[in-house]
């Protein structure tokens, strides 16, 4: 019983292991008898291939946990890839520079102000004793606005000092790595602000942003530039190649970005109040609001992070494919959503997490890899992928015992309301049911 429960709780990892096993056993071998699937090169390829989707899915996880959705990530990545390629290759005040430099300065300022306030706030509070006497409420210390404002202006000035010289020539690898995500972040933040301020459905708002951002990407690239090639060493700096290389010759750079992003965001979701609020909003937004949580701000931040990660993905895209183009991210949002859902995060919000998404992304990547190794027709690959998504989600959403008991009791009149298997440990299945009803009301 206990084993079954453990199996059920860790089923995602078993699924990942299963796919890995299938890949290993079914893999074609080279003439020397080496397993191609298991070869280091192949596995690195998988990691490289999933990194872009993975970054997007990481941001998407936060949004979906709040019971939202971000359909605009593909287009945001497209515009960011255009911005990145243009900054790398074209000197002067191109549309990309005009967009990127102020965006960077603005984001630098906002982040610096927030950090300063955060530090002041916590320093002030750490002097107050932890245990507050009952009946006495300590009001939050009055916010000092002058210092954060100064810090913000300094940060903005520093950002401009860093970028303005690069505008004259071309941007270096650090330049695009800092500026491009800021553009994405602002697009994401606009999504969030419209959703919160206008009290609109995330689906509609991000759908509109998806179209709008694509249009902006095309306008930025210009009529004749369907593709902006980036040739490191000739029209761009050679050090940009770092982003497509192996670190110390063993680990692909894009994979490092994906893993780092998943780890950091995962830690934020787990160890900070912000992370708890994300889950709380997805679980019951009204209860969260009435608990005094700034629901609007938390939501805006999740969308901003989603946009920012799309921006980082765009830089990696440019490095990998040596080009930026307005149709770079077509269909990417759906891959990301599929990976998040395979990872067990509920589209209703409040349940799931980044560990699941990480597995989901890898399952997706390994699957494509296996199908490619077998030279399966690409259209058939799509069909298989679709089936796998449904299969995985089915196993994720219904726990194994439930599926089995459904099958077993299919013939008699009705399924018993509470399968006997759950009798001793009501927590999981019961809480699922509760989750359903909570969303209904």
């Amino acid at each position, binding site marked *: 019983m206990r084993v079954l429960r453990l199996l059920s709780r860790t089923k995602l990892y078993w699924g990942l292991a299963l796919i890995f096993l299938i890949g290993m056993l079914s893999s074609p071998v080279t003439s020397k008898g080496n397993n191609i699937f298991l070869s280091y090169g192949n596995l690195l390829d998988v990691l490289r291939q999933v990194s872009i989707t993975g970054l997007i899915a990481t941001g998407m996880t936060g949004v979906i946990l709040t019971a939202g959705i971000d359909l605009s990530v593909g287009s945001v990545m497209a515009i960011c890839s255009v911005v990145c390629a243009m900054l790398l290759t074209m000197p002067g005040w191109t549309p990309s520079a005009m967009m990127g430099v102020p965006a960077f300065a603005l984001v630098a300022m906002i982040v610096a102000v927030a950090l300063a306030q955060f530090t002041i706030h*916590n320093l002030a509070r750490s002097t107050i004793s932890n245990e507050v006497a009952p009946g006495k*409420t300590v009001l939050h210390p009055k916010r000092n606005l002058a210092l954060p404002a100064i810090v913000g202006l300094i940060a903005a000035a520093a950002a401009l000092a860093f970028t303005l010289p690069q505008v004259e020539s071309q941007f270096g690898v650090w330049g695009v790595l800092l500026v491009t995500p800021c553009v994405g972040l602002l697009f994401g933040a606009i999504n969030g602000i419209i959703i919160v301020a206008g009290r609109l459905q995330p689906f509609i708002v991000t759908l509109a942003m998806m179209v709008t951002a694509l249009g902006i990407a095309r306008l930025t690239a210009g009529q004749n530039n369907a593709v902006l090639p980036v040739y490191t060493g000739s029209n761009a700096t050679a050090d940009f190649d770092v982003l497509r290389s192996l670190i110390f010759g063993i680990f692909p750079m894009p994979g490092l970005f994906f893993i780092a992003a998943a780890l950091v965001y995962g830690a934020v979701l787990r160890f900070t109040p*912000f992370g708890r609020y994300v*889950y709380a909003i997805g679980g019951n937004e009204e209860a969260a609001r009435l608990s*005094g949580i700034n629901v609007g701000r938390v939501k805006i931040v999740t969308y901003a992070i989603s946009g920012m990660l799309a921006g980082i993905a765009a830089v990696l895209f440019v490095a990998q494919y040596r080009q930026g183009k307005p149709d770079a991210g077509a269909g990417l949002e759906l891959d990301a959503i599929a990976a998040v859902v395979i990872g067990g995060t509920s589209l209703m919000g409040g349940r799931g997490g980044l560990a699941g998404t990480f597995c989901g992304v890898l399952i997706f990547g390994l699957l494509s890899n296996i199908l490619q190794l077998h030279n399966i027709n690409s259209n058939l690959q799509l069909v298989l992928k679709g089936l796998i998504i449904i299969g995985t989600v089915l196993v994720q959403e219904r726990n194994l015992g439930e599926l089995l008991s459904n099958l077993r009791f299919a013939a008699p009149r009705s399924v018993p309301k509470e399968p006997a298997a759950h009798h001793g440990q009501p927590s999981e299945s019961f*809480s699922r049911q509760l989750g359903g009803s909570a969303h209904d009301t």
Partner: protein
Amino acid sequence: MSSRPIDGDMSTGTGIHNRPLVLSCSGISKSFLGVLALRNVFFELHAGEVHALVGENGAGKSTLMKIFSGVDPDYAGTIHIDGQEIRFASVRDAEAAGVAIIHQELNLVPELTVTENIFLGREPLLAGLIVNRRKAAADARVLLNRLGIDLDPETRISTLRVGEQQLVEIAKALSVSARILIMDEPTSALSPAECRRLFTIIRQLASGGVAIIYISHRIEEVMLLADRVTVLRDGCHVITEPIGALTQEKIITAMVGRESLGTTPGSPGSGGRVVLSVRDLSLDVSTRRGWRTVLRGISFDVGEGEILGIGGLLGSGRTEILETIFGSSIGRRSGEIRLDGEAVSIASPRDARRHGLAMVTEDRKAQGLHLLATVRDNIALPSLGNIARFGLRSFASEARVAEREVKELGIRCTGIGQIAGTLSGGNQQKVVIGKWLATQPRVLLLDEPTRGIDVGAKQEIYELIFGLARGGLAIVLVSSELPELLLLADRILVVSEGWPRGVLSRDTASEEVIMKLAAPRTRTDSARAT
């Protein structure tokens, strides 16, 4: 009133008892999760009678109606319709037997027309496939004419006034040729003129032989309209009498008259230092038809260790008072809120929490709890920001806070890791209270703190509230259960239709006085109340 002229062939007698019995039930019992909502209830309904069903909130009226209309097939006892024992398994069964219900909240589709709503799900068809719009419209017109309702069947529901929508509901109910019509608080949203029109139609229907169960809080209406009255209290049948044998006072006594609750009042009832002071609070809510007044001129003070009760009927603005103070109501607000003598501005629950206000909401499942989260996460949620150090959660401190509340409130759970949704109602309520006590509030706003909780747990919550008051917390309590209000509150503010109707002290308050003050008045005399 009981001796209205009766149709020819039945006119040998004078009372309604000579008319055929269409519905009778006996021994109806029903419990929700161990709480008995109906106990051995007895009810009879004759053809052509208007039978009023009255009782306080939670007396079991709605539960009984859900059983009659097939919404709730799970009960003990027997129901006979036309002398035949019957057990409805679904609303469809009940409809087939001629029972129709008009709920308090209207169940119309706003974007469809009157005709489409009336025939929703039963559209007349052409060749079994296509909706016969012409026939539907003609039938609807006939139906509306028969009821004397002057409405174009092609208008959209969303463009109609609430009163008109109510009439459409009646037409819809009658289109299934209902012989038993249940109306749950049909006048709660109607103007006096619309009420009169509705009453005429109800009388018309009754004289046509339809049996009507009429649920209302407004005793005056019941006196005017009903042939007989049945009173329920705490899920039990109290009396069934012809209207001629009753007076308004008798009905109210039957509704509220019960022995007082067991506990001895333990509150100091102190006139201590004023903590929360509210002046001239008002709230207007935006609707399709412009601004609607929800609250006007609400003023009160609550002292340290004092429990102020707010009494009133459903929809009187009780909850909105708390929401407006807590910054969670949506609409145009005005008035002054002072905490410890200092004027504060509270625009959101976040501001309220910062100023040391706490609110336990009415609907703990929808507004108070994260059912899928653990007890610890629920209790720590409002205090997370204060518990965290440099943006990192301290799991140890969160657990400590949660453990403390679990211990202090006596929350029965397997541990702070238990999922909140798996707790019993009373313990869930304690978790909601605990999550706010963890923020060390100065003022506690309680909205229906014992709703849906069984008797034992209620007693515990009462002890808890007294204990908190003794600890110096200023408490504002909203409750629709009058005995609870009388037991707990040091003073009671009675509101009706958003206006304050008076403040009662422990000595002057009684259920009768509260009911009288709480009864809705016609629009014109609202002004003099302040």
